[in-house]
């Protein structure tokens, strides 16, 4: 019991079992007069971007300096100049609905490798507290998500935000339930994107979890937001066939969420933050339900992760979207044919999707080997 109480460090001041804890841990020398000596949070919980620091260096292009930092002055310049671009204001209430934990997309059935990591003894609790080892594992997963699936999310969001809205007036005028042919072209591109994500997601467990959440999300949002319902339903139709292998695509979490955000006119930065937030939140919730940490400490963990996610989005990811946008604005002046030759911005982006944490991929598949499991993935 004292072990479990020990994880609720927020409650320790008025904890009835304090004495038991003090005597237990005092004997092993880790306790000083009733105060638990926790590992220093700032040192361990400082978000490190080392795992992705060399991710975007182009080794095979000799003209790019191999050792130069990927975050060079050009990137920052494009960041500042394109941030001034006016992005259509989206009511925060819309955002709250998108990341509401009540959305029946089924995210709570997934621990996102956390359960496997716990059962396979990969969370190191001999040196760190549960919260700290969870923090570092969840952060690894978030970094991995940021490099592997976020490019697809951004591409999908960008696709619908820019191309669909250019034709949305037509859609409103016609008030047709089925999307216009022009939208079909967008949907075809989305299908392509989704198929690419499918072949990049090589873990069947991750793929299963992603497609279940994706189709759940499409269903939930097609009903929740009636004004985008025709297109969302059209996306759902492409994913939902009798058997998943007969469908044109499978509808992954990232591409579906990106599409919905794009349809609602949400900018890429917000979309990306929301996606990473829900990933972190679901994992923390899984940890709480697995009784690894208490709910109060879970809140603290989510708070710390949110800080790190904000830093990740603004400092590491945002300038990459902006660069894409800059490239795209250059492309706009070119003919459609030229653009095809260069590949669309979404293609350029997703072509560099990659993993940065090898163990996460192994753990994802290992979930199916667990004898008892609470979660689906």
């Amino acid at each position, binding site marked *: 019991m004292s072990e479990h109480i020990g994880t609720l460090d927020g409650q320790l001041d008025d904890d009835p079992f304090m004495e038991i804890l003090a005597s237990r841990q005092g004997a092993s020398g880790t306790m000083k007069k009733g105060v638990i000596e926790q590992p220093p949070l700032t040192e361990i919980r400082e978000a490190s971007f080392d795992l992705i620091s060399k991710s975007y260096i182009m*080794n095979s292009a000799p003209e790019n300096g191999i050792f130069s930092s990927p975050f060079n002055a050009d990137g920052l310049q494009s960041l500042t100049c394109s941030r001034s671009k006016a992005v259509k204001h989206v009511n925060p209430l819309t955002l709250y609905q998108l990341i509401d934990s009540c959305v029946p997309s089924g995210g709570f059935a997934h621990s996102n490798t956390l359960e496997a990591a716990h059962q396979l*003894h990969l969370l190191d609790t001999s040196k760190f507290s549960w919260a700290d080892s969870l923090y570092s594992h969840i952060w690894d997963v978030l970094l991995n998500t940021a490099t592997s699936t976020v490019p697809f999310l951004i591409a999908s969001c960008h696709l619908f935000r820019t191309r669909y809205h250019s034709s949305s007036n037509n859609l409103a005028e016609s008030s047709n339930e089925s999307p216009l042919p022009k939208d079909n072209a967008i949907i075809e591109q989305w299908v392509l994107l989704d198929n690419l994500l499918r072949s990049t997601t*090589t873990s069947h467990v991750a793929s299963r979890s992603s497609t279940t959440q994706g189709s759940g999300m499409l269903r939930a949002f097609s009903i929740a937001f009636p004004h985008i319902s025709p297109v969302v339903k059209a996306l759902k139709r492409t994913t939902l066939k009798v058997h998943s292998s007969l469908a044109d695509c499978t509808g992954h979490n990232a591409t579906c969420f990106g599409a919905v955000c794009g349809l609602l006119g949400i900018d890429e930065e917000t979309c990306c933050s929301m996606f990473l937030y829900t990933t972190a939140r679901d994992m923390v919730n899984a940890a709480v339900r697995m009784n690894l940490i208490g709910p109060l400490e879970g809140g603290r963990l989510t708070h710390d992760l949110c800080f790190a996610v904000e830093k990740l989005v603004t400092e590491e990811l945002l300038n990459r979207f902006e660069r894409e946008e800059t490239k795209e604005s250059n492309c706009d002046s070119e003919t459609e044919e030229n653009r095809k030759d260069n590949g669309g911005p979404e293609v350029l982006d997703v072509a560099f*999707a990659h993993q*940065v944490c090898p163990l996460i991929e*192994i753990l994802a598949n290992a979930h*199916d080997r667990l*004898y008892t499991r609470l979660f689906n993935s």
Partner: protein
Amino acid sequence: MISGDVIELNIAVKENAKLVVTSQSTSKAFKAVSGRNATIVKTKAKVCKGGLLFLVPQPMQCFGNSVLTQDTQIIMEGGIESGKEEDYPSLLLVDWYTGGRENLDGGLWQLDTFHTTTTVSYSHHNLFPREEDVDDKSDENSTASCELVFRDATRLSGGKILRRHMRDYNIVCMVVLIGPKVKEVASTFMKQYSSRHTYDDGQDQSFGKNPSKNMDYNKGEGLNRSGEGLLVSCGTFQTGKENRYQEGVVVRIAAATLEIAGNDIFAFKASIECFFALFSSFIMHASELFVRAHWNP
């Protein structure tokens, strides 16, 4: 290999041919020299109708501060149209790398940059007129109408954070199996490493006094049990729309450094051997099956 080295390997396995490609020992990428280009290893392979490619090189070793890019492209060509299973091309691919040397270079996983990309695509007609699926733009002609079915890209940035993430593991390995000729090996892997073991011979069924503390009721090899130092998982992936009922199998393994011989520059040798001891049974099994089934004239 040192900075600026570029190794390109083009392999074509023609109709009903079988090929084994391996290497003599581990490939070693040494410390990068500032101002020089990265070390690049490119392998392109084409497997035609009924062919079998067994691409099993020794692991890649990334020493401290090495900058290495590895790109493996496999194109499975033809054989799907006939609808006969024996015409499908087959592939067994092993891609593995180690974290370098424990006693030199400041420890394991101190590489600078390691990019590895493995793609498997099926060549079809008129499926995707645009070649967006294939990330390597340098070979547009041969990949123009390919349907990408598998893409594994890993980009490691070495240092203490990577080392922390890798825990005690020194070797990461991926095995990809596609096609009828490796079906038996694939199903062996699947049987052993893809689902839980329901009961373990009726022995040791008590979970200890406190089940929440004792997670070792996960039975089977490769579940990172104490002293084992091995993590194995196995799963399937779809091999495309045309042959939609076919599945490929991907096995992922992380193996620990069990012992490090600290006496000479081959400090990594022990761990490699340990890993081989664990892994060789599968490879041997696979090789045996392969030879028995296909090597008879």
